[in-house]
C-alpha cells in the first residue's frame, strides 16, 4: 500500500517534469521564432532584447535554458512578466490561488450535494414524473452557457433588482479575502458559486442517475433485497455506495481542471482575480512567462487531483487495494 503510494508519487513528479519540459519547448524553442522577442513583448527596444536574451540564457543550449527557467520559476522566483513590467509572475499566481480555490471549493460543495440529491431522487423514481422533470431541469443546467448565466445573474443582482430587499445584500463584483472578512467573502461568492455549480449539478445528477440505475440491476442488489432490508437501505447502502466510484473519479478530475484555471469564464464574469483570469489575460497579451507559470501550476493541480482520486478510490473501492 505504502509502496504503491510512493510509486504513484514518483510517477506524478515524472509527469509534471514532462509537462514542464513540453510547455517550455512549445513556448521557448519553437523553431522560426525568436523567443526573446516574444518574452520582451511587442515593440521592445534592441537593448531589452539583448537583456532578455542574456537573462534567460537564450544564447546557451536548450537544457541550460530549461534549467535557468525552472530556477527562476521555483527557486529564485523572480521571473517577471514582460507585458506588465516589474510584475513578478510567481506572486501573481500565488495571489490568485485563494480566489480560485474559494470559488471552486464552494461551488464543488454545492454541486456534489446537488448532484447527489438529483441523481438519487431521479434514480429512485425512475420513469416517473419526478424523474423526467429532474432530467429536463438538469439538461437545461448542462446546456446553459456559464458566461450567459453569470451575466444574467449580474444583471439581476447588481443592477435590475439590486435595490430590492432580495439582492440588496450582494456586494459589488470582486473578491473579499476570507481572512479579512468571512461574511463578506461568503456574500461575494454566493452568486458565483451557484453560477459555476449549475452546469455540474446537471452533469453529475445525470451521470449518477445512470450509474445508479445500472447498479440497481446488479445481482448483489437482489441479494440485498432478499435479506429483507428496506428499499431505502438497498438504494443507499448498496446501490449508491457502489455507484460512487464513477462519481468520485469524475469529481476529482473536474475539480483539478477547475482549480487549474478551468473556471476562467466564471472568474471573468464576476471580476474575480483567479488563476483562470490570470491565464486568460496572459494569453491575450502573449505574456510567455506568465503563461508558462500558469500552465505548470495547472498541470500540478490536474496531476494532484488524479493522485487524490487514486487514493480516495482505494478507500471507496476495496478492489483497488490489492491490484498488486
Amino acid at each position, binding site marked *: 500500500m505504502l509502496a504503491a503510494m510512493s510509486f504513484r508519487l514518483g510517477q506524478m513528479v515524472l509527469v509534471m517534469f514532462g509537462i514542464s519540459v513540453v510547455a517550455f519547448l512549445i513556448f521557448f524553442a519553437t523553431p522560426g521564432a525568436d523567443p526573446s522577442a516574444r518574452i520582451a513583448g511587442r515593440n521592445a527596444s534592441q537593448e531589452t532584447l539583448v537583456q532578455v536574451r542574456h537573462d534567460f540564457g537564450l544564447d546557451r543550449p536548450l537544457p541550460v535554458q530549461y534549467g535557468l527557467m525552472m530556477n527562476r520559476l521555483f527557486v529564485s522566483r523572480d521571473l517577471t512578466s514582460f507585458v506588465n513590467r516589474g510584475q513578478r509572475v510567481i506572486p501573481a499566481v500565488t495571489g490568485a490561488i485563494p480566489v480560485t480555490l474559494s470559488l471552486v471549493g464552494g461551488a464543488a460543495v454545492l454541486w456534489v450535494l446537488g448532484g447527489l440529491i438529483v441523481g438519487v431522487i431521479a434514480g429512485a423514481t425512475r420513469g416517473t414524473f419526478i424523474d423526467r422533470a429532474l432530467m429536463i431541469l438538469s439538461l437545461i443546467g448542462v446546456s446553459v452557457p456559464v458566461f450567459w448565466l453569470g451575466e444574467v445573474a449580474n444583471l439581476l443582482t447588481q443592477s435590475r433588482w439590486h435595490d430590492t430587499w432580495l439582492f440588496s445584500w450582494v456586494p459589488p463584483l470582486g473578491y473579499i479575502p476570507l481572512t479579512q472578512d468571512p461574511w463578506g467573502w461568503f456574500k461575494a461568492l454566493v452568486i458565483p458559486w451557484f453560477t459555476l455549480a449549475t452546469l455540474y449539478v446537471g452533469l453529475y445528477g445525470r451521470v449518477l442517475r445512470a450509474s445508479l440505475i445500472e447498479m440497481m440491476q446488479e445481482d448483489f442488489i437482489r441479494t440485498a433485497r432478499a435479506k429483507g432490508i428496506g428499499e431505502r437501505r438497498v438504494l443507499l447502502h*448498496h446501490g449508491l455506495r457502489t455507484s460512487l466510484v464513477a462519481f468520485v473519479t469524475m469529481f476529482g478530475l473536474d475539480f483539478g481542471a477547475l482549480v487549474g484555471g478551468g473556471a476562467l469564464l466564471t472568474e471573468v464574469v464576476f471580476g474575480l482575480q483567479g488563476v483562470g483570469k490570470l491565464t486568460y489575460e496572459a494569453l491575450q497579451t502573449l505574456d510567455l512567462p506568465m503563461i508558462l507559470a500558469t500552465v505548470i501550476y495547472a498541470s500540478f493541480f490536474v496531476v494532484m487531483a488524479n493522485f487524490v482520486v487514486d487514493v480516495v478510490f482505494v478507500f471507496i473501492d476495496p478492489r483497488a487495494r490489492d491490484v498488486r
Partner: protein
Amino acid sequence: MSVNAPLLVVEGLTVSFRSDAGLVRAVAGVSFAVEQREIVGVVGESGSGKSQTLLAIMGLIDSPNAVVSGSIRFMGQELVGLNRRALDAIRGRQIAMIFQDPMSALTPVHTIGNQIGEQVRAHEKVSARAARARAVQLLDAVGIANPDRVVDGYPHQLSGGMRQRAVIAMALSCNPALLVADEPTTALDVTVQAQILELIGRLRDQFGSAVILVTHDLGVVAQVTDRVMVMYGGRFVEEGRKGSVFRTPLHPYTWGLFGSIPPMDGERPARLAAIPGAPPSLSNLPKGCAFGPRCAFRHDACIVQPPLVGGNGHRAACALPETSRKFHIREVASIETPV
C-alpha cells in the same frame, strides 16, 4: 397453524412478462407444497421457469413488465401482493435465498462481516459487535477455515467456493424455516460443489430448515433431496418422492433427461438417448402438451394439456395410458438406470 401443516403452499402461480413477442408465460400456473424440514429438488430445461418460481416466492420479481398471480402461502400467510414492509419482515428472516453466481451475489464494497451483520440487524435488535460475532460463528459453521480473518475480507478476496459459503452463511443467519437455492453449485468446480452439497445436506439437521433446491443436474438431486419436481415449459410435468421418480420415472421428458446424462459407471452406451429437437419458445408454446414436438410418444390425446395426476404422491402430466407407460418405463430403465 398445526405442526404438520405444509410450510409453503403454492397454488396456480403464474409469472408472465409483457414483451414485443406477446405475453411470455415463464411460469404457467404451478401448484406445489413444501413440508417442514423437507429438501425438494426442482429440475428442468434451461428457461423452463425454475428461477422465476423461486423469485416469485421471495417477492423478487421487480420487472415493471412482470405480472405475478396465483397464491403463495407461507406458514399460512399469503405472500403474493404482500406490501414491502411485511415482506421484508419475512424474507431474510423466515425465507432466505442462495443465488447461482457467487461471484456477483455480494456487494463488492462491503466486507463479508458487514453484509452478514446487516441481515442479522435487519431482523434482530443486536449490537454491531454481536452481529459480527454471529457472522464469525456462521462462517465457521459453513466450513470456512479462518472465519476471523474472512469476516473482515471483501468478496473479491475470496474464491468462488468461499463466496458461495459466505452467501450460505448469510442465508442461514436468522435460522430461516425455508431456504431457496437457485443452482447454488452450477458456477463451482466439482470438488467444491461436493463441499457445498454436503453443507446443504447438513443444514436440515443443524438448523431444521426446509430447502428448495433448483438445479438441472439430476446427480445433485439424487444426492441431497427427498422429493423431486420436474419442470418443462413453465409447468411441472412430474413430481414425486426421489426414490419413486428415479426408479419409475413417469414422464417422457424425465425419461429423456435420464437418458441424456452419460453414465459414470458401467458400460458406456454407443449413443446417448438424447431428446431430439430444441426447448419450446415460451412466447409460442405448442398447443396441448408443451413437450409434444419432442416427444416420441405423442398421440391424439396430447392436443389438450394433460393434468398432473397420479397416486402415492407420484404425479405426472402425460396423456399416455398408465399401462403403456409402464411398458416404456421398463424399456427406458433397461438402457439407462443400471440396476
